[in-house]
């Protein structure tokens, strides 16, 4: 049952082969047994989960079950959950119990999904390895001496180790796709504005977007369908009709299901910097796509190499302002002793924030300062527009863009901790997608050295989530990379 797809779990619940309480208990027991070695969870909410599971069973009995009723899941600890600790991976919020639910959380509650707890993450979603968590690093289930990626490392590790079938995440520069790739699961970040940011603790507001983790594209499609939708409380939420992201997946498997699909390969994503084992797996996956009927074309994203510098101006700028509310006045950490107001602020924030968060606040404060704003912030915004234009130009000649999700497989815990720029470069293929606001997906496509997973990234035009999910689903129908499990989940 732990390796079952959502469709299989749905069938089992509907047929009464297992109750929601039994299913929740099964996964809660796995968390209890395995999470001490993975640290994928910050909070496990057994009581709340069982209560929700009982309610789901009542709905099942009443014939009132929807697609996710009774399905266990976990939320990245960036989403506010009423009555449950919401830490954002930070000492600053280590004591914060939210009085309200994020929009995503309330949608999934209403759908009858059963939240088992809150997953580990880089502090305030700043990081690519999960090592920046106040609660210690989450571990990669394929090799617990390695990082699971970040910032949604806990959600990715939890799904990879089958501590939970599906999980929510957020992606500001790759924080869903990169950990999905490094842990061998599927993750999707939709078009900016598809998932409400209300109740999702902001890192970089113009880039942050909620996303979904699952073992397969099909599972991600179901979770995303439940998470997405217009929310009047988020002014950047897009007012569009609700979509069923699974709608293209039901068509029966054919010999060449992707015939006619043109896959663009940006030469900038296949240059130096990509590890050989990643390249080999990606090339093999592209062969498989061609075997499924797709054609590949060379495209170019000439400004792609500017994505990281642009991102590390824009994201810290927004973060420096977004994180100003954590001042020790109304909630969260406050220093025990201080002489005056200035010291209350400085000590509370010095104690409450970790090194990477402080680094980005400093950078962001600097680039917004008088005399530097034009040179950094406005220039970065110009680059952002150029990058978005590059994607539009490339997508004029193809239907989707493909390439590696991450230049390497998972690295050892501590390996890049002292070199932030090396860490930043691990998001080199994902960041441009956020700057453009496009949807992106990562799915497992093989293994590199040391039996570590490799992910393939698919990027499409705005609102092409269903197309991306369908492409990945057809790939997964013809391959079994997504069915491989680390020993811990065997």
């Amino acid at each position, binding site marked *: 049952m732990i390796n079952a797809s959502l469709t299989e779990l749905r069938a089992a619940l509907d047929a009464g082969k297992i109750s929601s309480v039994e299913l929740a208990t099964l996964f809660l027991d796995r968390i209890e047994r395995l999470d001490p070695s993975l640290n994928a969870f910050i909070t496990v909410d057994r009581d709340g989960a069982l209560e929700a599971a009982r309610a789901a069973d009542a709905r099942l009995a009443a014939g009132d079950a929807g697609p996710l009723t009774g399905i266990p899941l976990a939320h990245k600890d960036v989403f506010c959950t009423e009555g449950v600790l919401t830490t*954002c991976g930070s000492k600053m919020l280590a004591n914060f119990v939210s009085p309200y639910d994020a929009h995503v959380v309330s949608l999934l509650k209403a759908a009858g999904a059963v939240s088992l707890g809150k997953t580990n993450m880089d502090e305030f979603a700043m990081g690519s390895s999960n090592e920046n968590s106040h609660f210690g690093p989450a571990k990669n289930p394929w090799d617990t001496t390695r990082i699971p990626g970040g910032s949604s490392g806990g959600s990715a590790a939890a799904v990879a180790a089958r501590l939970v079938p599906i999980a929510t995440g957020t992606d500001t520069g790759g924080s869903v796709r990169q950990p999905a790739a490094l842990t061998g699961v599927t993750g999707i970040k939709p078009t900016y504005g598809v998932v409400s940011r*209300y109740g999702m603790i902001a890192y970089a507001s113009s880039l942050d977007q909620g996303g979904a983790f699952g073992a397969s594209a099909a599972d991600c499609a179901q979770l995303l369908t439940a998470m997405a939708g217009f929310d009047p409380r988020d*002014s950047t939420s897009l007012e569009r009709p609700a979509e069923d992201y699974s709608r293209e997946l039901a068509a029966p498997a054919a010999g060449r299901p992707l015939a006619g699909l043109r896959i663009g390969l940006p030469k900038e994503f296949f240059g130096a910097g990509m590890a050989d084992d990643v390249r080999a797996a990606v090339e093999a996956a592209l062969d498989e796509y061609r075997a499924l009927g797709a054609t590949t074309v060379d495209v170019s994203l000439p400004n792609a190499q500017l994505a990281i510098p642009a991102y590390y101006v824009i994201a810290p700028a927004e973060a420096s*302002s977004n*994180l100003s*509310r*954590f*001042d020790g*006045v109304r909630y969260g950490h406050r220093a025990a002793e201080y002489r005056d107001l200035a010291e209350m*602020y400085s000590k509370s924030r010095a104690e409450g924030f970790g090194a990477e968060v402080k680094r980005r606040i400093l950078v962001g404060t600097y680039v917004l300062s008088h005399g530097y704003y034009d040179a950094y912030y406005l220039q970065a915004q110009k680059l952002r527009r150029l990058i978005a234009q590059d994607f539009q130009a490339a997508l004029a000649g193809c239907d989707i863009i493909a390439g590696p999700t991450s230049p390497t497989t998972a690295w050892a815990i501590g390996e890049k901790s002292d070199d932030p720029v090396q860490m930043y470069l691990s998001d080199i293929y994902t960041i441009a997608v956020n700057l453009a606001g496009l949807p992106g997906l990562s799915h497992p496509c093989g293994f590199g050295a040391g039996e570590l997973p490799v992910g393939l990234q698919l990027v499409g035009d705005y609102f092409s989530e269903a197309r991306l999910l369908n492409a990945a689903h057809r790939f997964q129908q013809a391959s079994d990379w997504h069915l491989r499990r680390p020993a811990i989940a065997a």
Partner: protein
Amino acid sequence: MSRNDWEVVIGLEVHAQLNTASKIFSAASTAFGAEPNAQASAVDIALPGVLPVLNGGAVERAIRFGVAIGATVASKSVFARKNYFYPDLPKGYQISQFELPVVQGGAITIRVGDGDKAYEKTVQLTRAHLEEDAGKSLHEDFHGMSGIDLNRAGTPLLEIVSEPDMRSSAEAVAYARALHALVRWIDICDGNMQEGSFRCDANVSVRRPGGPLGTRREIKNLNSFRFLQQAIDFEVQWQIDTIEDGGRIQQATVLFDPDTGETRMMRSKEDAHDYRYFPDPDLLPLVISPEWIARVRSEMPELPGAMKARLVAEYGLSAYDAASLTASKEVAAYYQAMLTAADAKPGSQLPKLCANWTMGELAAQLNRAECDIADSPVAPAQLAGLVQRIADGTISNNIARKVFAALWNGEGGTGADAADRIIAAQGLRQTNDSGAIESIIDEVLAANQKSVDEFRAGKDKAFNALVGQVMKASRGKANPAQVNEMLKRKLEA
């Protein structure tokens, strides 16, 4: 050197609180006076994860203001974050507008001074932008700690910035008063200065006439017109004294202390915040369609300037009367209602009579009773009924004062005919019966031979005394013009 060797340059920044029911970015109430923090929503206290949603009512009011002052209402404006730390600023930034404000340009005509020295002047506006208010820090009552009340946090403000067009504290006050009247006239702000709904910051500098602008100092948070005048007067003299003593003015922000009547420095330019403005990524650019502006324009009431011009052109009122009657929305509404009730035709004496009574007896009585004209116990139609009786000769002006006092006390009922009822009940109708008047005159002349003799000896004053005696004997009801004429005829006979 005297004060006359210096030119004063003043620009005003006014924060007008917009009278929306809910806050600018949340659904919490804006009502004044609730228990601390009872009107602070999750958005207002800046919980993690919350987001702002713009209140369309605040935008509507900004458009109304822009249209009223003939400004450009920007088709696209941008909300920006103004970053600074303070305990009553929950997000650590204020959402405001910086590079692209919603209202750009515009002008307001003011009338300065009284009598012959009165003059009109047009003050240009730089901009007006939407922003949210902060909360309040309460430093008393907490034994060495500070209390924070976030009820006001997120209240919508329109910050209205003038060009440095004013040349005296009198002009600054006239501008502030005109602006105050306008925002109340177009119903975007209640104008309650005690509650902080209308707050002025004054940028003040002095220079040699025709010379380059001097360095300015900004006086913050003046919440009455009197303080505005006092603060500017003090500041101007201080700047002149400082320069004449060989000093230099440093750019600074100052506070006015009403107890001492002095300004004192709060922070210098060196201490000024770097607010690190940048466009708020949580809010889309504010897009205002031409249709929206056109709708607001079509719903705009007659504005004070237009009404003033109409009163002069149509009814022949003096500029002074017209300005006084349009100085506030309520006075103008009262006068307009009175004109309608009295059926005051252009060319008749009624418009002027209505004006005189509104600004004279009524204003004085309201003033004595500390009563707003909107709450006047004498309704416009009732006062119109009284004025009509003066116009048609039923009563004299003197008797009318008596009738007004009775109206004020509620006599005569609540109807428009209250004055008629009082006149009838008290028998105050003016006597035009020449026979009756003549017999009174004869009695008075017989009883006052001394005055008659004095008049005939050339003392004109004696005539007035005799008129007074006749009026008194008629209990004020004799038609004064008739009395004059008949008495003169008899004495000269």
